[in-house]
């Protein structure tokens, strides 16, 4: 049992981790085929996991409905939506359009229910950004003030009115001040990129360390326990 739960998964992790790593350095068709094959296996396993996920979803929400727990009506909507989607998909053979380029019932379900609901959620982001920005830009500390100042300059440079006003000022001073494109460009291409690269280098080192721990079997948390 311990072999199946611990040793075999650790061995497989090491084997496939090292294989994919070696394939990265070996440029030939055999290595291409090996890594391609591993990726295919992965896709198959993910497909099986998706079935498992859908089953768990139906079981959990089915239980909610049967026991009429708090919020069971939402579960009813979830189950109803899943069944409707699957039924329409099977009925229309997974096609969204007929041969005459008209929407099928499955296509209607997708384009007039799913897509607008998704877009609605995404559109909410605009309001959340406004409220988050309001909090973030309160200049209570030096760092918050720098953030506010940077944001104002970038906004000023991106907005047509700001760019137009700065151009007037630029010409009025006899072209002796930098252009708005220079200022925003410096901020975005030098300051921001420098900060981002610093973060990315740290992240890459973290990724290397974590991957190494997983591949050589020092990190076993993902197997369900440490020991």
């Amino acid at each position, binding site marked *: 049992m311990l072999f199946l739960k611990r040793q075999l998964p650790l061995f497989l992790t090491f084997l496939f981790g090292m294989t994919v790593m070696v394939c990265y350095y070996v440029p030939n068709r055999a290595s291409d085929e090996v890594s391609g094959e591993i990726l295919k296996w992965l896709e198959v396993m993910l497909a099986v996991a998706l079935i498992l996920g859908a089953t768990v*979803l139906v079981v959990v929400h089915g239980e909610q409905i049967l026991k009429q727990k708090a919020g069971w009506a*939402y579960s009813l909507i979830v189950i109803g939506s899943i069944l409707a989607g699957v039924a329409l998909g099977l009925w229309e053979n997974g096609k969204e359009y007929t041969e005459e380029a008209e929407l099928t019932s499955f296509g209607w379900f997708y384009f007039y229910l799913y897509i607008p609901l998704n877009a609605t959620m995404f559109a909410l*982001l605009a309001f959340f950004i406004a409220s988050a920005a309001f909090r973030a830009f309160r200049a209570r500390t030096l760092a918050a003030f720098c953030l506010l100042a940077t944001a104002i300059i970038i906004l000023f440079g991106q907005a047509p009115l700001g760019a137009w006003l700065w151009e007037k000022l630029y010409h009025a001073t006899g072209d002796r001040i930098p252009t708005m494109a220079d200022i925003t460009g410096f901020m975005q291409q030098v300051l921001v990129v420098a900060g981002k690269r610093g973060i990315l280098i740290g992240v890459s*080192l973290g990724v290397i*360390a974590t991957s190494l721990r997983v591949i050589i079997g020092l990190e076993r948390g993902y197997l369900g326990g440490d020991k």
Partner: protein
Amino acid sequence: MTVRRLCLLALCLVALPSRSLPQSPPPAPAGVAAFDTPNDKGESVSVTWNPVAGEKENSVVYEVRISDRAEGPFTKAAEVKAGEGWKDEAPDLFWYFDSNKGVHHARIDPSEALPPTEKAKLQKVNEAIKEAGRPGGDASLIPGLNQEQRELEESIGQENRQIRGRAHYYQIVAKTKDGEAASPPVAATAGGNYFNTVKTPHLLLTLFLCGGIIGFIIVARRGKELFLRKIPGLAALDEAIGRATEMGKPLYYLTGRLGLSDNEKSVSTIAAMIVLGKVAERVATYDCALKVPHTDPVVAGVCQEMTRESYIRAGRPDAFKEDINPYISTDQFSYTAAVTAMISREKPAAIMYFGYYYAESLLLAETGNSVGAIQVGATDADHQLPFFFAACDYTLIGEELYAAAAYVSREPILLGTLRGQDLGKGFLILVAIVGALSATAVALGPETFGPLHYFVDFFKTPFAG
């Protein structure tokens, strides 16, 4: 008058030969070499040659010709204009050696030697094989090919199918408007390689970093005390769990939007799962409610087992509930809508966002903020960090996410990897400083400091992808 006529006649005599006599053709290109393209998958042969004298002034055009026999006939495989197609323009094949400068280069697919009809057939089959997901594989074994593609593949014949593994002859023809001159043919065969030499710096750097990490793990295992700087965001984990316990409200833990194998960023999901194991153990100890909504069924399954083990380790297997790890949806906004709704209804006391996030980060974090939850964001998605800064009480930046597991557990192995990471960081800071100085010196004094470009290029290669 006579003198004038004589002068005109003399001028005509001088001018006439230069107009009517033919110019000499260009010399045949010298230094022609054909060889298997290094560091590719055996798809091509590289042909290099030295430029002929005055190629730009005479508008020389080079034709690379190919044949399966030394005596020909040769067919045109590529054309290179004067001043174009240099070997140093392909550092992914030949790296940045100074010897690559001033040498023409053309990369030729040997299938160019096939007759046009066969070439078109081979191209179609190769495209079909590529679509079926097996580049370079045996088409007869590929289920993705349709009947037409299968017949096409069979009609190509074994010999043509293996065209890349056979020797071919290459010659360079220099052409001007006054004529052409061909180099003697040279033979080469395309084949795969066992090691991509251009990735040597990459490999060395990886070995150095991995060696450093393993070295510190050994040191930590021997019991040496390793200093760990304080990370406020991680110190806040206990505060968040304590708050949730006192308020009698649940603690939400999110593992990000990625699965275990979506892309190279999926490592952050593994890091988030590792931290979950530690958080779940403390949550179980304090008898606080935990909820971990998932967007990936595999992650949900693994986390279910991890949290179960954590509850057992904490001595509270009875407190574990099967609905701690609900799978919500793989779809981004379906997941977001469901989780924001759960947060609004249950009003958790604390929410932890670990892992990789996209546009949903702010939707989730702002909803959490609106219900007054203490929030800890930890992500390596640099484009989402500002949103977590704005909406969360504590934010772990990039690498701190990977340090979290070590910080929380204080296990020697994990602490060792942290010190290894620090060593790597210190080394890269040093490389950045020396590299910047070297690049500046090369730019200012190429004659004196020219060789310093090897240092810059050595470290440029791994980071160029």
